[in-house]
């Protein structure tokens, strides 16, 4: 196979991968979640569907 075609194929594959990562990151950011920051600097994140998020998100919805 000619080297140009190999390079083109690799570039297309890398572009597709980067695009899918960006789309997935954006989709994840659109998900509702609760982030709890503790005094010791640790952080816990709870996405939709978890027990923690289901308890706190309804309160947040009331306030918005």
């Amino acid at each position, binding site marked *: 196979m000619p080297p140009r075609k190999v390079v083109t194929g690799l570039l297309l594959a890398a572009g597709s991968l980067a695009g899918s990562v960006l789309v997935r990151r954006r989709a994840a950011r659109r998900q*509702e979640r609760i*982030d709890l920051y503790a005094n010791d600097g640790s952080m816990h994140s709870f996405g939709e569907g978890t027990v923690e998020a289901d308890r706190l998100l309804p309160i947040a919805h009331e306030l*918005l």
Partner: protein
Amino acid sequence: MDAAQAIADLTEISPQVRKVVVIGSDGAPAGSNLADDGAVGRLADGARRLVEAAEALRPGVAQLEAATLAGSVFVVRDGERLIAATTTPEPTVGLVFYDLKTCLRAIEEAPPKPVRRRSPAKKNADDAAS
């Protein structure tokens, strides 16, 4: 700095922030950018409920963000005091937390009321009369 001035500064430097309430160490709202007392009470009550629920899940919560598609709710604690704010969707989380902490620390706590003691002369006069 008083609460109204600190909140005005906060909303000026952070346009993502919409509604703000500061809750004093006595649990009562100490300031807000909302004109309606009912709305202030609802925001303060909701912030307290968020912190209580978070504390029940993970003790030692210092601050929290509840992110929804309609916007986010932030609550930051400083000792017994709280500041809660709602923001536009997808805010710059670190900046909002920083601005809320700065606002809360800029607000001076009302000094505790001095305990009134009866002067010894008055006490003696009262004792002599009885």
